[in-house]
Structures are given as structure tokens and as C-alpha cells.
């Protein structure tokens, strides 16, 4: 045998799971939601998603190659995931230049300035989304209504989302039951037949993706289930207290970004806690803050802000919540 032997410390076998496989697993899980958004919103969905993904990958590549002068790592797929999630948070008729700005903020500011993959404290897609929301409030809150997959990019018709109708209506003093007439039925909302951002409408498709990710062990059940349970319980309590002012829990679970946030945004590895106990506390926090903002806040939707606020607590959760150790302390005689 001519070759020299390879010597390295144990273990000498490694699992076949890689960062890239995990990232593309998430992309695969998002495909049902992408299909649903194309079905409801038409070509706009494709154009916005494509622009977002390409911009995010390009920004990361350019910054790494020309600013940081390191080997570009875009092949690990994390920029693609950020691009997809950013696209899913915006309307399907958003002007392209705004999307590019969003990509620059998401990747450039929220990820690369902190040191790249693994070092950012805040969810990059959400930072981008919130930045766009504050900078372009009108364009970012003109949500298209579902007009079918033949709709051209520029032909989208905007209208109020169910959450928008609810919050406006309640502020004007209308009762919830009257408002529910103007809102699609629960079943329609489950399938995604409502206005909103591209990724948030089809609860069914998102749940499908979530089940796939849990089956493939990409995420665990702790965060999605706890967020949804907290939202359901909190809104359930409010609804029981006064059904004329508060909508039922199923409505809250199916509308807005809660489904997307619970399954795909809050479960982002880098910005979520690393222990099951920590994850549950984090998820409860997200659920509570979401409902608070939805009910009493100025915005009709609060998931993005809730997740970003809880992202700030994650280092604390990681530091103080430790996994259960094997073996109790022994006294040294």
C-alpha cells in the first residue's frame, strides 16, 4: 500500500447530515407554501420570491468576496432560506427595488455585520421585513387579495386582510360577529384564500412543511407547538371573556403570520435557544407578545416584533437554562 495512513482524533465516523442538507430541507418544506402563494397571487409571487433569493445570495457573495475577502460560503444554503423567508413576509406586488433593499438589510446588516452565519442575534429575514415596514409603510401594508395564479405581477388587487378588517372594525366599535361576515370562513383561511403576505396565507401548506421538518429532524416540535398553543390559549381566554370584542382562537391561529412565524421563523437555529426548556420559554414569550400586540398594539400583526423581542432574550436563556445533567453532585470526601 503506497498511501500514508490518515490519523485524526476519534470519532472516525460522522453522520451524513450537513448544514447544507438542513438548509435545503427547510427550502423543500417551504415549497408547498410557495405553490399556494403562486396559486393565489399569480406571477407576482414568483417574481418577488426569485428577486429576494437572488438578491440575498448576491449580497452575501459580494460582501464575503470583496469586503471581507474570505471564501464565499453561499453554497451552504442559508442565504437562500433567508431570501425565501423574506419574500414570504412581503406583499406579492412589492416593487423590486424595495426587495433588494430588504435583502441588503437582511444579509448585510442583520447577518454579516455580526460575523456571518451563526453569529447573528436577530432573525435576518425579520430584521429586513421590519426595516421595510417602517421605511415603506404604504407599499408594505397594501396586501393583495387572492386573484388566482394567472394574475400578472403588476395586476395585483389590494384589499384588507382579515386581521386588518378585525382590528379596524373593533377600533370603530363594530362587534366581532358582524366583522366575521366580511372575513372568509375558517376553512377558506386554512387553505389560504385570503389577503396577506405571500407566505402567511396558506396555513395548511405551512403545517405540511412543518410536519416534514419535524419528521426529518430538522426542527423539534417544541417551538411551533408551544407558540401556537400559547396563542390559542391566550386568545381563547380573551374570547371567552368578551366574544363581541375578541375573535376566536382558530381565527387568530389561521390569520396573519403566526403559522409562518411559529413554524419557520421562530425555529431558526441561530436565533433560537438550544435547550428544550429554553425553547418552550422562548415560544411562550413569542405567543404572549404576539397576542398583546394584536389586541392592544398599534399594528394589526405582531409576530415579527414578538420574535425579534424574544431573540434578544435568547443569549440569556442559553446561559441560565442548562440541560439536565447526568448524575447528581457527589461530595468529595
Amino acid at each position, binding site marked *: 500500500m503506497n498511501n500514508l*495512513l490518515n*490519523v485524526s482524533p476519534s470519532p472516525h465516523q460522522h453522520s451524513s447530515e450537513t448544514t447544507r442538507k438542513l438548509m435545503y430541507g427547510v427550502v423543500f418544506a417551504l415549497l408547498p407554501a410557495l405553490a399556494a402563494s403562486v396559486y393565489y397571487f399569480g406571477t407576482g409571487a414568483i417574481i418577488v420570491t426569485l428577486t429576494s433569493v437572488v438578491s440575498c445570495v448576491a449580497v452575501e457573495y459580494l460582501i464575503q468576496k470583496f469586503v471581507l475577502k474570505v471564501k464565499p460560503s453561499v453554497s451552504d444554503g442559508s442565504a437562500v432560506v433567508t431570501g425565501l423567508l423574506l419574500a414570504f413576509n412581503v406583499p406579492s406586488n412589492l416593487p423590486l427595488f424595495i426587495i433588494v433593499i430588504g435583502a441588503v438589510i437582511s444579509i448585510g446588516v442583520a447577518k454579516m455585520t455580526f460575523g456571518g452565519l451563526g453569529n447573528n442575534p436577530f432573525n435576518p429575514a425579520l430584521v429586513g421585513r421590519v426595516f421595510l415596514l417602517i421605511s415603506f409603510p404604504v407599499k408594505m401594508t397594501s396586501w393583495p387579495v387572492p386573484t388566482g395564479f394567472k394574475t400578472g405581477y403588476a395586476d395585483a388587487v389590494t384589499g384588507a386582510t382579515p386581521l386588518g378588517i378585525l382590528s379596524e372594525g373593533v377600533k370603530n366599535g363594530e362587534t366581532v360577529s358582524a366583522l366575521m361576515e366580511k372575513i372568509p370562513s375558517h376553512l377558506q383561511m386554512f387553505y389560504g384564500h385570503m389577503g396577506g403576505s405571500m407566505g402567511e396565507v396558506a396555513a395548511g401548506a405551512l403545517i405540511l412543511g412543518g410536519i416534514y421538518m419535524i419528521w426529518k429532524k430538522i426542527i423539534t416540535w417544541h417551538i411551533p407547538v408551544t407558540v401556537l398553543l400559547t396563542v390559542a390559549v391566550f386568545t381563547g381566554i380573551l374570547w371567552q371573556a368578551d366574544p363581541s370584542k375578541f375573535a376566536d382562537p382558530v381565527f387568530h391561529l389561521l390569520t396573519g403570520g403566526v403559522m409562518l412565524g411559529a413554524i419557520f421563523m421562530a425555529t431558526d437555529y441561530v436565533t433560537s435557544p438550544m435547550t428544550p426548556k429554553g425553547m418552550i420559554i422562548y415560544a411562550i414569550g413569542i405567543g404572549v407578545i404576539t397576542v398583546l400586540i394584536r389586541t392592544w398594539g398599534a399594528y394589526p400583526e405582531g409576530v415579527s416584533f414578538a420574535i425579534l423581542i424574544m431573540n434578544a432574550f435568547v443569549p440569556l436563556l442559553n446561559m441560565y437554562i442548562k440541560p439536565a445533567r447526568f448524575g447528581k453532585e457527589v461530595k468529595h470526601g
Partner: protein
Amino acid sequence: MSSTVLLTIIMLSLLGLTAAVILYVVAQKFMVIEDPRIDQVAEVLPGANCGGCGYTGCRAFAEILVKSETFEGLNCPVGGAETMSKAAQILDRQPVAVEPKVAVLRCNGTPENCTRTSVYDGAMNCRVAHSLYGGTTACQFGCLGCGDCVVACQFNAMYMDPVTQLPVIIDEKCVACGACVKACPRTLIELRKRNRKDRKIYVSCQNKDKGGPARKACNVACIGCGKCVKVCPYDAITMADNLAFIDSFKCKLCRKCVTECPTGAILELNFPVKEEKPLQPSVAEVIE
């Protein structure tokens, strides 16, 4: 001006004033009385906090300097004689002359000299590799090439040469702080006396095996034959554990040992080329 604006201005001004008073009182009450000379000495020190002086940073060293009676045993290798004389001026003491030093790698196990017998694929960390096994060659004392020393150097005075697979020390930048010496798990780096024109003569080996196995592992190993010890006119060379050592403070750079060494383990650097070299005995004779 409307009453709201006036009220706001008054409130904020009062707030600011209260904060200022509290801060002033607290600063005065908790002020630490320090010898003002510590600050003065710390000013003239380089501020690199490299630990080369043996203390935890420049401020700690300044405190020690102020407290000690003499400068005996105290030296800042980064600032050198200039910094020490400035500090001496401030403190009205005599500076002690310290010989400047430079870091030297005592290994010449390039792939050409020392055949590779395995490939290392673990974490790029010399301590990890050292605790795992003897290394990618048959010499268990030689450089592992993972660069712990390069990482430890805070003065950018070291880099890893990809061809020789050994670290290179840039003489002009090296301040002899000793960080690389501590980083190497095999104590292959030594602080030696810095000579004029950066000339160096040293035994580039740390192999303590007997001559036969040492030479088999590496062409330029020190085989412990002792010829250098015999030929040195200044008694600068000692032998221990089959390994020769040249005391850099006794060495007068006459280069007689370099010519005597049968394997070429003793290196001479930055000297003008000698015209003629006398014949060297064969290594096999020497091992017998």
C-alpha cells in the same frame, strides 16, 4: 414660548443638574487614591498588554515598576531600552541594561529533511495534535505545523510557510514577548540573544533520541555525537539527553561548530557565505 415647552425645558434641566450632582458626589466619595506616577509610567509603556514583561498588562507592570526599589529583573521587551529609560526618568531610578532577544524555532523538519509517515486530519491545533500522537513524521519531538505559535503572536511577527510546513519568525517584528514559546506544546521556540545583523547560530533540533533513531527519522537531526562541544573555543555548547545546546550569551558566532556538525543540525543564519568548507566525516562513522 408656550407653557408646555417652558415646563419641559425646566424639567429636563433639573434632571440634568440632579444627575450631574449625583455623579460628582459619587466620584468624589468612591475615588481611589493612587500614586499619580503609575499613570505617568503607564503613559510611556507601549500599551500592547502582551504579557511579555511577565505581568498581566501594561498597567500592572506600571504598578510594579512604581513599587519596586530597582529595575532589576524588570523589562518591557516590546518597548525595549528606550521605554525602560523613560520610565526610569519618571521614577528617578537607574535603568538596568537587558540584552535584547529574539524568538528562534529549534526545528528544521521540512518534508525534504524529515519524511512524512502519516497525514494529520484533526483540528488545526498543535496541542490537540501533540496529545493525540507523535506527529506526521517518525520524530516525536518535531514541529507539528498547526500554527498555535502563529495564532499566539500579537505582533504579526510569525506566519506558516506552506512549503517547509514550519512557522517563520520575522526578526524585525519580533519583540521577544514569549507568547509563542508558551504556545508551543513541544517547547520548540526559544528566546535567544539578538546579535547584530540578526545573525544566529543554534542547534535546530529538539530530538532527544539516540543518534541512530534520530537520524533515521530526520536528515538534519542532532545525533548527540558531541563534536561541536569539543570544537567550541568558548565552552558555549553543552550536551544533555543526546542533544546539543548552544548558550546564545556565550556564543561568539565563530561558526566552528557549524562546520563540525555532521548532519547540519546547527544552523548559521544571515552570515556572509564562506569561501571553502573542509571535508565533513560521514554520518555513519560518527554514529559508530
